[in-house]
């Protein structure tokens, strides 16, 4: 009898054990990361040891947010927190990508009309895109997925987190940025108006004027300054978000005149927060103008250096370094990733883009900011992501050494406090004790 009882107890215990480690148990909502080094990227104190840089620190995450962080001595790990053992590793915010073309599918260039203010790419977010899966392996956690540059106003991008497990929750902001193109790609299409730069500028000015007036009309109406309700125009509604300062305008632009044009047209004339992107073929010559304006956020990539143009001095000029020299403080770097190939930077190599910018003279610190907090600021999502600060999303990347070091891969990535990726063969999660008889793993 006794035998049967003990066997029953054992079986019962085993069942309890197995049920408690059953696959459908929700992931732990609380983590404590023991970190060898934390780079918080916190604005204003990014690389000061003790504030922006914490050696031997602890981060507490709960319910998708950062609950606390600081030196190990100052933080007590409460009960019930699953420990992530990263004492020999660096912990950084998840990488933020401000300009990419993965994550949404279905042909992102609608070329019928030169401007498409009605289109938003949020409607075609594709969680199964290979870039989503691969991006995470490179520590990328948030991306601004953009429509293409075939037309002057391609529509609106979407900001998503690279956690495909719940497509609804992927979208961080439905209207990421208003996407415009100042030069080059739209010139491919021989159409009527818009095939030349003059034509493009005219088209852009027209639509901006309309949207500005529309926004002002609504603002006046909402304040009671205007009695008559403005006529509702679907295609301009979305642009109001840009004019109201809710979302930035990302402008695909090149060379000195193009970047200056973008700065003038969007920031100076229309008071829009503008992110000139690409800016190759000599854009950096107007770096000082960008630096002067708080509403301008330069984003470079996939090209990161210039030879011949614009300097023609036989030297390789790092675009990041040149912007830094010109005083630009909010520089962000992109991959402009399309599909998944080795020929041009794939999504997971955004950190490599930062390394290469650093190679050509950009400070390592600015290179790292350029893929975290500066991207977040450019997108206006720095209240949520881009740095490790209390209250922000628990989007975290863990690896041995700096993100700029490519001899070590990213080991673990959390998004919204959930482990989205852990490299095969690595297990940093300290398993909880389930049964007193079981050894601690």
């Amino acid at each position, binding site marked *: 009898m006794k035998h049967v009882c003990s066997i029953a107890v054992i079986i019962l215990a085993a069942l309890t054990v197995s049920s408690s480690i059953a696959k459908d148990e929700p992931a732990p909502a609380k983590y404590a990361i023991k970190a060898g080094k934390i780079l918080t990227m916190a604005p204003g104190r990014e690389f000061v040891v003790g504030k922006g840089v914490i050696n031997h620190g602890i981060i507490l995450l709960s319910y998708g947010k950062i609950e606390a962080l600081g030196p190990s001595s100052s933080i007590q790990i409460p009960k019930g927190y699953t420990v992530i053992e990263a004492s020999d590793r660096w912990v950084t915010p998840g990488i933020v990508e401000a300009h990419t073309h993965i994550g949404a599918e279905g042909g992102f260039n609608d070329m019928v009309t030169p401007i498409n203010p009605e289109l938003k790419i949020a409607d075609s977010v594709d969680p199964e895109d290979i870039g989503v899966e691969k991006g995470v392996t490179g520590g990328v956690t948030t991306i601004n997925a953009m429509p293409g540059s075939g037309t002057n106003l391609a529509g609106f991008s979407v900001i998503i987190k690279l956690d495909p497990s719940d497509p609804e929750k992927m979208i961080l902001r439905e209207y990421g940025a208003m996407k415009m193109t100042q030069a080059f790609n739209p010139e491919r299409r021989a159409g009527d108006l818009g095939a030349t730069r003059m034509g493009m500028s005219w088209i852009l000015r027209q639509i901006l004027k309309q949207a500005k007036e529309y926004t002002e009309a609504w603002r006046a109406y909402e304040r009671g300054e205007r009695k008559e309700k403005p006529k509702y125009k679907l295609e301009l509604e979305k642009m109001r978000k840009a004019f109201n300062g809710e979302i930035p305008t990302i402008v695909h632009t090149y060379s000195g005149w193009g970047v200056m044009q973008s700065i003038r047209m969007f920031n100076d004339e229309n008071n829009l927060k503008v992110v000139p992107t690409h800016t190759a073929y000599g854009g950096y010559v107007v770096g000082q103008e960008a630096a002067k304006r708080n509403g301008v956020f330069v984003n470079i990539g*996939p090209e*990161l*250096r210039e030879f011949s143009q614009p300097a023609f001095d036989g030297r390789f000029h790092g675009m990041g370094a040149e912007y830094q020299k010109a005083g630009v403080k909010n520089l962000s770097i992109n991959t402009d990733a399309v599909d998944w190939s080795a*020929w041009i930077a794939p999504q997971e190599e955004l950190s490599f883009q930062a390394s290469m910018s*650093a190679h*050509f003279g950009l400070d390592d610190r600015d290179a790292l900011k350029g893929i975290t907090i500066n991207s977040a600021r450019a997108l206006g999502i720095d209240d949520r992501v881009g740095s490790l600060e209390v209250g922000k999303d628990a989007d975290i990347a863990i690896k041995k050494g700096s993100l700029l070091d*490519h*001899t070590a891969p990213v080991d673990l990535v959390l998004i919204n406090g959930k482990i989205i990726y852990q490299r095969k063969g690595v297990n940093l999660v300290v398993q909880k004790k389930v049964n007193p008889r079981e050894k601690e793993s």
Partner: protein
Amino acid sequence: MGKKHIHHVVPMLLFALAISVMFVTSPLSAAEEVTAIRGGDLYTITGGIIKNGTILIKDGKISDIGQNIEIPEKAKVIDASGKVIMPGLVAVNAEVGVIGYPDITKISDSLDPFEFSISLALASGITTAMVSAGRPPGDNPIGGTTAVIKTFYGDLDQMLVKESVVQPVLISNRDWLRKTTFKQNLRKAQSYLRKLTEYQQAEDKKNAEEPKKPGGLDEYIRLLQREVPAALVASTADDILAALELVDEFGIRMILADAVEAWIVAEEIAKRDVRVVINPRQKQRPNEDISGPSGSNLENAAILKKAGVKFAIIPPSTSFETWGVVGRDMMALPMEAAFAVSGGLDEQTALEAITITAAEIIGVADRVGSLQVGKDADIIILDGHPFHHKTFVESTLINGKVLYEKAKSLYFSHITNDE
């Protein structure tokens, strides 16, 4: 920077100076000179790292290596304190130094020591490269010719190392006509060689008839006699296995190029002692139609190493680019090896894959690829670890001659990465 005046006058002065120096320095006096590089960490590749070491160079060769070596009085000393000294890098396949006409059949006749990419190669630390040329039209599986060259700017005579080192073979599983032709020709050549051996071993030569050498099979005979390896592109596991069948049947030497899925069949590759060339960052989606592993894998290199396969590493592009996209062409060869390390490869093997193993694969390991006494003095001095993202090549020497100095070149002298 007072640009306008200086830029105008200085190049002319430098040129005039260079001309006069060229007259003054006869080749003979340079050869008798000894050069010493000292003070840095010598990454010998084959003999470990010698900290704070010295290399002596004489007559274009490495004459001594060690920690406490006496430097001759009249030696020209290059102070490399705090630097990393390595053998010049070896690109197992690159586009450099050849004047690009389509109908080249002998590369040594088309080398151009002033070709633009040579300067970029020197600035990237690449001193030896295998170049290929001449894709014949039609269905000929024999695909052109190769040569190993040094990136010796300005001196045609010092460029060529070896001609026809590797035989490119243009076949794949999908191209059955070429593959069939290849096999048939190999069999024909095999049969001829068998008859030739019989004839040579025949006691009664008068009655034996010397077999006539069939035309158009010279390359096949060289392959069968294992004079050169066949190099073919084999990206999928199936392609690789099919290629290995050729090794089994004909006993030829082989290099598997672009071997993206080598990791899947690493053991099979190891059994045949063939060589492999991989690009660690190569991307190939897994094939959803097949069961079992497929696609690219950053751990490719590590897995091959574990299985005992010898391989070389190249980046996604084999040319030297000046456009804005960085880090994906030949100028970033060490970065590619760094990525292999992130995939689990040990650092030593990663370095070998861009030096000695690469040299071995292209048949010049007796001369280059490591810092050893007696080898060519093809040496690079780096300002940091080769896999660090901020490292630049500071000096490049070939045959003991300094051909590139970062501080004196326009390319990167304005970039000072003080960390």
